[in-house]
C-alpha cells in the first residue's frame, strides 16, 4: 500500500475533466466521487497509487498540489470549482500561536510604529505558523551570493532557500525563522533568528517554492565590540546544497497593499532592504506596473559598495521607482542619512503622507527610527500639519509599518 503525501493533495482539474467516470471506475479504493458538476478526490481515502492516471483521457487527473499539512481542500470546495485554484493559493491562516521568542522579536521590531498596526486592507491574507520548532521544514541552499562589493567591510549576502517542491507560502514583508544547529554555551539549543524575505510571493525563481533572504554577517555588536553572530555567520557560511531548518512563515501586518493605485513609500538601511526588494520585485513582475501607484524608496548605507542590491536597483527605470540613496561614509562628501533625503523631498513626502493610498514602510537598524520620525515631524510642521495627530491616523489605517532591529 502506498500512502498519500500529507503535503500534497490529489486534485482533478474541473476545467479539463469531461466527467467520463473512468477514474471513479478505476480507483481501487473508491477515493473518487462526483456530483452533478465535478469529479473529486477524497483526500483522506486516496492512497496515491495513481491507478487513475493513465486511463484518464484528458490529463485532468494529473494534479498534485502542495498544501499545508492538514489543510486539504474539502470536497465542498472542490465541488464549487470551475477551475483549479493557483497551486500556491492556500489562503488558510493557522490559528496556532506564534512561538514565544518569535512573538518577542516581533514586538521589539515593531515598537517604533508606536502601537499595533493591522495589515493594509487590500493585503493578501497571509499564512502564518505553518512550520514550528517541533515541526520545521528542511530547506536546501540553492545559492549564496555576496551582495556587497569587494572593498566593503560589510559582508551582506543574498541566500536562496529551496523548499523542495513543498509549499511554503510567503508574502513580501513576512519573515522566516532559522534555527542554527548546535547549542549555545549553556548547552541549550539556539533560539530562532528571524529574517525578512527578499523575494516576492511567487519565489525568487517563480513557481519553484523557494525564497531569498538578505543576511549581514555580524562581526560586532551595537556598541562595536567584536562578536561573532551565531545565526548570521551560520547562514553566510552556507554552501549550495546545505540543509537549513526553517520555521514560519511569520508576520501578518508588515504586508503590501494589493489594490490598484496603491503607492509604497519605503525607507530602509542595510539588510532592511530585504522586504523592500520583495515588494519592488512583486510590483515589477506584475504585468502592468503602471496601473499601480508610485514607488518611492529612501535607502541608506555607508557607501554604494555596501548597499545591497545597488546594481539591480540602478537598472530600474525612473518611471517605475523613485529612488533616493543616502550615503554616510563616502570620502570627501558630507554624511547623508535617509532622513536628510526625506527632508529634501518634503513636498512629495508630504503629499504621500496625506495620500490614503500610500503605505509607508520602515525597515533597518533601530537607530534610523528617531531620525525618520523627526524628519516627518519637520515636514508636517513645514506644511502646517501635526505629526502627533497624523501618526495615529496612519496607524489606524494600517499605513505605517516599522520593523527595526
Amino acid at each position, binding site marked *: 500500500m502506498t500512502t498519500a503525501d500529507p503535503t500534497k493533495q490529489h486534485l482533478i*482539474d474541473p*476545467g*479539463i475533466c*469531461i*466527467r*467520463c*467516470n*473512468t477514474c471513479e*471506475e*478505476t480507483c481501487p479504493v473508491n477515493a473518487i466521487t462526483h456530483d*452533478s458538476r465535478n469529479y473529486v478526490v477524497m483526500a483522506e481515502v486516496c492512497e496515491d497509487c495513481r*491507478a*487513475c492516471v*493513465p*486511463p484518464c*483521457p*484528458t*490529463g485532468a487527473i*494529473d494534479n498534485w498540489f502542495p498544501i499545508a499539512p492538514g489543510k486539504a481542500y474539502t470536497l465542498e470546495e472542490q465541488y464549487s470549482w*470551475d477551475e483549479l485554484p493557483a497551486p500556491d493559493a492556500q489562503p488558510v491562516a493557522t490559528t496556532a500561536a506564534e512561538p514565544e521568542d518569535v512573538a518577542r522579536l516581533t514586538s521589539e521590531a515593531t515598537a517604533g510604529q508606536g502601537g499595533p498596526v493591522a495589515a493594509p486592507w487590500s493585503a493578501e491574507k497571509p499564512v502564518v505558523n505553518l512550520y514550528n520548532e517541533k515541526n520545521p521544514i528542511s530547506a536546501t541552499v540553492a545559492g549564496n551570493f555576496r551582495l556587497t562589493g569587494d572593498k566593503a567591510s560589510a559582508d551582506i549576502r543574498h541566500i536562496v532557500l529551496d523548499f523542495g517542491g513543498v509549499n511554503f507560502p510567503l508574502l513580501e514583508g513576512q519573515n522566516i525563522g532559522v534555527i542554527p544547529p548546535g547549542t549555545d554555551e549553556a548547552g541549550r539549543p539556539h533560539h530562532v533568528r528571524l529574517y525578512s524575505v527578499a523575494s516576492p510571493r511567487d519565489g525568487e525563481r517563480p513557481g519553484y517554492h523557494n525564497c531569498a533572504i538578505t543576511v549581514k554577517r555580524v562581526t560586532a555588536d551595537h556598541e562595536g565590540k567584536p562578536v561573532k553572530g551565531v545565526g548570521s555567520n551560520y547562514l553566510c557560511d552556507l554552501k549550495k546544497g546545505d540543509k537549513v531548518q526553517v520555521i514560519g512563515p511569520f508576520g501578518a501586518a508588515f504586508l503590501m497593499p494589493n489594490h490598484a493605485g496603491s503607492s509604497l513609500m519605503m525607507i530602509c538601511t542595510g539588510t532592511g532592504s530585504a522586504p523592500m526588494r520583495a515588494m519592488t520585485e512583486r510590483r515589477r513582475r506584475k504585468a502592468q506596473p503602471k496601473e499601480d501607484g508610485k514607488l518611492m524608496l529612501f535607502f541608506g548605507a555607508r557607501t554604494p559598495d555596501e548597499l545591497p542590491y545597488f546594481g539591480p536597483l540602478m537598472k530600474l527605470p525612473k518611471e517605475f521607482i523613485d529612488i533616493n540613496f543616502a550615503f554616510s561614509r563616502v570620502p570627501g562628501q558630507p554624511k547623508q542619512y535617509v532622513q536628510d533625503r526625506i527632508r529634501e523631498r518634503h513636498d512629495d513626502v508630504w503629499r504621500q503622507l496625506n495620500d490614503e493610498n500610500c503605505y509607508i514602510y520602515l525597515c533597518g537598524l533601530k537607530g534610523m527610527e528617531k531620525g525618520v520620525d523627526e524628519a516627518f515631524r519637520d515636514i508636517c510642521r513645514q506644511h502646517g500639519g501635526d505629526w502627533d495627530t497624523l501618526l495615529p491616523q496612519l496607524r489606524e489605517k494600517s499605513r505605517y509599518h516599522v520593523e527595526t532591529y
Partner: protein
Amino acid sequence: MSIDYSQKIPNNVDLASNKTLQRALEHWQPGFLNWWGEMGPDNTSQAEVYLRTAISVDPKGWAHFDYVKMPDYRWGIFLAPQEAERKVNFGEHIGQPAWQEVPGEYRSTLRRIIVTQGDTEPASVEQQRHLGMTCPSLYDMRNLFQVNVEEGRHLWAMVYLLHAHFGRDGREEGEALLERRSGDADNPRILTAFNEKTPDWLSFFMFTFITDRDGKFQLAALAESGFDPLARTCKFMLTEEAHHLFVGESGISRIIQRTCEMMVQHKTDDPAKLRAMGVIDLPTLQKYLNFHYSVTSDLYGAEISSNAASFYTNGLKGRYEETKLGEDHRLDTAEYPVMEVVGDKIIVKQVPALTALNERLRDDWVKDVQGGIDRWNRVPEKLGIPFRFALPHKGFHRKIGIFGELHLSPDGRVISEAEWTHKHRDWMPTAEDRAFVQSLMGRVAEPGKFANWISPPARGINNQPVDFEYVRFN
C-alpha cells in the same frame, strides 16, 4: 492480466489454447489490414504517430505511449478482468450465474446487437478518413488517429465475440463488417448516422462529442449484459471511448474559446465580421450542435420499443449503470415518463418502464450531453459574452419515433411544414454554412502551431508539451 504480444494477435483471452478460434481470427486479420489500408486514414501509412497502446488491461498498463506507424498498431482482443461469480443482474434470469456461452434462444438477438454495435466502429473510421489532410494541428491529427485506431480495435473486440461464440454465422458477419462501406449506396453501414459524411473538423468534433457519446451509453448498457464476454468486452471499450468524448468536447470548447477571444478583442458579435476574421461564429456552432444532436438521438430508436423490452427481460442489455440503480431490476410494474404528441400539444404520459428503455437510455445520454454543453458555456461566460449554447427540444429534427412525422422548432413547438421550410435554415447548418466551415479547413502540421479558428489545448497528451511532435512524417 497481461496481454500476450508474442502472438500474431495480441490478446488476454488465451487465444493460443483455442486453435480453431485462433486460426479463424488469423484468417480475418489480413482482411482487416486490407480494409484499414483501403478505408483507414488517408495517406498515412508511413507517418509515426504518438499513440496510446494497451499493454495490459489493468490501470497501470493499458496506456502505453510511443510512436507507432498506424498499420503496425497492435490491434488485439482485450477483455476487462473476469469478475468471479458474476450473476445476471436484471430481467427474468436475475440471480443466475452470468452466461459464458450464448444461450441458444438468444443467439440471433445477441448476434444482431453485436453486429449493429460492431458496424459503427469501422463506419466512423471510414467517415473520418480524409480529415488528416485538413488537421488544424499535429496535436489534433494525433487525436484523430488515436480515435481511428481505437475504433479499429473496437471492431476487433466485436469480431472476436462473433468468432468465438457464433460459429459460422459469426465468421460471415465478421466478413460482412469489412465489406459494408459508410455512405455506399449498394452496401451501406447499418445505422443512418454512420452513413453521413464527416466532411470537416467541426463535424468531427461534434461527432465525437455527441455520437461517440451514444457509443458510450450503448456500450455501458451492454457492459451490464448477462452474457459475460460481451459485458467484459464493452467494459474495456468504455475506457477507450472516454478519450473520443474528450477529443470532441475539448475540440469544440477550443473553437468556442477562439471565437470568443476574437469577439472580445474586436468587440463584435457580428457573424459576418467574425467569419471574415476566419473564426466560426457561435450561432453556426449552435446549428451544428442541433444537427448532430438530433441525428444521433435517432440512434436510440423509437421511444416505445418491444425489442428493447425483450433485450432487458432476457438479460441481454441493461440500463445505464444498472447495478448502481435501486432495487427493481425486473421492471414488471415500474413506469417511465414518455412524451406524446396530441394535436399540436406535447404531453408527458407514464408508460411501462420496460417498453421505454430506449427513451430512458436516450435521457441518460441527453443529461450527459447537457453536462458538456454546460462546460462549453463556461467559456463565453468567463469572457463576459452573453451567448449560451442550448440543446434543442428532443423532438427537433427527428426521423424516428413519435416525432418522426412531425416538425418541431428547437424550443419544442409543433410547427407546420411551411414554417419548417421557412425557418430551418436558422436552425440547421445550410450549404453556405458548411461551405464556410469547409473553407477554413487547411492543414497545419508544424509542432505547436494551430489553425486560426481553434485555440491550443490546455494540456498536451500524456503530459507532453502542446508543441510536442505528435506525428512525425518520414
